[in-house]
């Protein structure tokens, strides 16, 4: 029983957490690809930027002596999401829109987004330095230890982890209703399907582009904030998860928001379960096994965790280039 709880703690919880973060990032990436037709490499830094906006707001409130029943960072994340959305639209206006209007090919926009990545990283380091920061400016994070009958080990969940899962569920449901019920949401799908026809039909593509950046930017802010709350906030935080997010987007099918969610959780779980120490779970059965159980039996050493999304990416590109949900082929 103890071993099962260990599996829940180290395998399932971590998989859900990292999967949620990947999903939130991948949704934005896939929407941007579907509507603006380029791979937005600066998405990871949009996440870091969002997390820093949250941190600044949280620190400001903490300095004013505000205390709330929920972590400050979580509460100010919502205004931070709005600010990040505005910043995302600003980045689009300044860098991507002029290129679009000049009729630049998608690869030019991709390169521009690499430029934006480097710029954002530089700006963040310039103002915030390189050290890692704790998002809990006012109090340490709450850790719940839930006793499980028949086990001495307890189920461990932290407050930000619960908030993250709740937020992801709400965000996914809201996104679903937006895309299937709202006029603008349907227009987004129409533009993603056939931009020329959308224009002829009189759909205001400018509004659709804004909506895309608002959703992409605010979800990136949420993902960045949540990730920093789960660990710490570092300037290179989301640059490291850019690759898994791209993997999630491609695995799910490029341009498919539901695919991005599925892909996010798939990549998240693969990663977590690949570095999970299986020998602890197998220990109860050690007499029946035909081999000696080593003390650490993970499929991939933790340092090589980043290999997993790479591997998934390669396998998907070879065997199912359209992804799970039949997206576009790169």
């Amino acid at each position, binding site marked *: 029983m103890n071993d099962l709880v260990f599996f829940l703690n180290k395998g399932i919880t971590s998989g859900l957490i990292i999967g949620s973060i990947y999903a939130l990032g991948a949704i934005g990436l896939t929407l941007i690809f579907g509507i603006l037709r380029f791979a937005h490499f600066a998405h990871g830094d949009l996440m870091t930027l969002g997390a820093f906006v949250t941190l600044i707001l949280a620190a400001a409130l903490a300095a004013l002596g505000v205390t709330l029943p929920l972590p400050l960072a979580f509460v100010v994340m919502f205004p931070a999401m709005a600010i990040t959305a505005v910043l995302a639209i600003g980045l689009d206006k300044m860098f991507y829109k002029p290129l679009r209007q000049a009729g630049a090919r998608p690869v030019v926009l991709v390169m521009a987004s690499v430029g934006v990545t480097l710029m954002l990283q530089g700006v963040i380091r310039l103002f915030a330095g390189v050290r890692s920061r704790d998002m809990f400016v006012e109090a340490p994070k709450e850790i719940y230890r839930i006793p499980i009958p028949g086990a001495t080990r307890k189920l461990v969940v932290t407050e930000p982890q619960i908030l993250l899962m709740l937020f992801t569920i709400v965000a996914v449901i809201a996104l679903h209703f937006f895309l299937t019920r709202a*006029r603008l949401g*349907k*227009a987004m*799908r*129409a533009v*993603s*399907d*056939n931009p*020329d*026809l*959308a*224009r*002829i*039909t*009189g*759909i*205001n*593509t400018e509004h659709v582009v804004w909506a895309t950046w608002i959703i992409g930017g605010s979800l990136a802010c949420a993902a960045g904030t949540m990730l920093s709350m789960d660990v710490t906030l570092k300037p290179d935080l989301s640059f490291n998860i850019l690759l898994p997010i791209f993997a999630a987007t491609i695995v799910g099918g490029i341009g498919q928001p539901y695919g991005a969610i599925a892909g996010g959780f798939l990549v998240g779980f693969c990663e977590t379960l690949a570095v999970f120490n299986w020998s602890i779970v197998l220990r109860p059965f050690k007499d029946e096994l035909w081999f000696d159980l080593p003390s650490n039996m993970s499929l991939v050493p933790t340092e090589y965790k980043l290999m997993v999304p790479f591997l998934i990416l390669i396998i998907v590109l070879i065997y199912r280039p359209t992804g799970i949900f039949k997206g576009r082929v790169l």
Partner: protein
Amino acid sequence: MSLLDIKDLHAGYGAMSILKGVNLSLEAGEIGVIVGPNGAGKSTTLKAIFGMLNITEGSIHFDGEDITGIGSEQLASHRISFVPQENNVFPTLSVHENLEMGAYIRRDDFSRVMDHVYEIFPPLKEKRHQPAGELSGGQRQMVAFGRALMIEPKLILLDEPTAGLSPMFMSQIFDRVIAINQTGVTVAMVEQNAKQALAIAHKGFVLAGGQNSYTDTGQNLLNNPDVAKSFLGG
């Protein structure tokens, strides 16, 4: 005053000019058919109407307004609908959503128009919740027509509506074009199947080399031996 009046239109892609003096005018309620050999500038004339290429000379007037070089996104607000030859539906959107998108610029209640479209195209009502991309070619064409009708257009532009359809569907499409026209919508249509198309046309425009070579009523063009010899295959 004509509803659509194209005067001496010169246009092309970049520096390359394709249209070298196209004249075309349609009265409200007419069907105009543009025919001609490949590369004569038929589809290009339609595209020139909504700013998809460089207009160097000439003018386009619609309903008394100068619309020379307007962008394609402004077409709908002038109540002009365009049905492209291919990729004319939103494939992952349901049939119903396709029609809703057709009415995107409308802020009023368009349920009456929607019912009307379902009346003209009964198969669409049956498949309203199915993604348009899963329909047959003929049914997709119906979705495209239906989408175009949602703004209750004054003018509908059709780019080779029968291309790639079986002969049985072809006559159905022409019947639909007549039906749509009889509700008061002016139709400007580019067609490869010149004979059938001219038979339903009030006005016909035979283009060659980016210019009008014959402009007359549809019936007169069909009866004109020169036109028959050079463009209609005898």
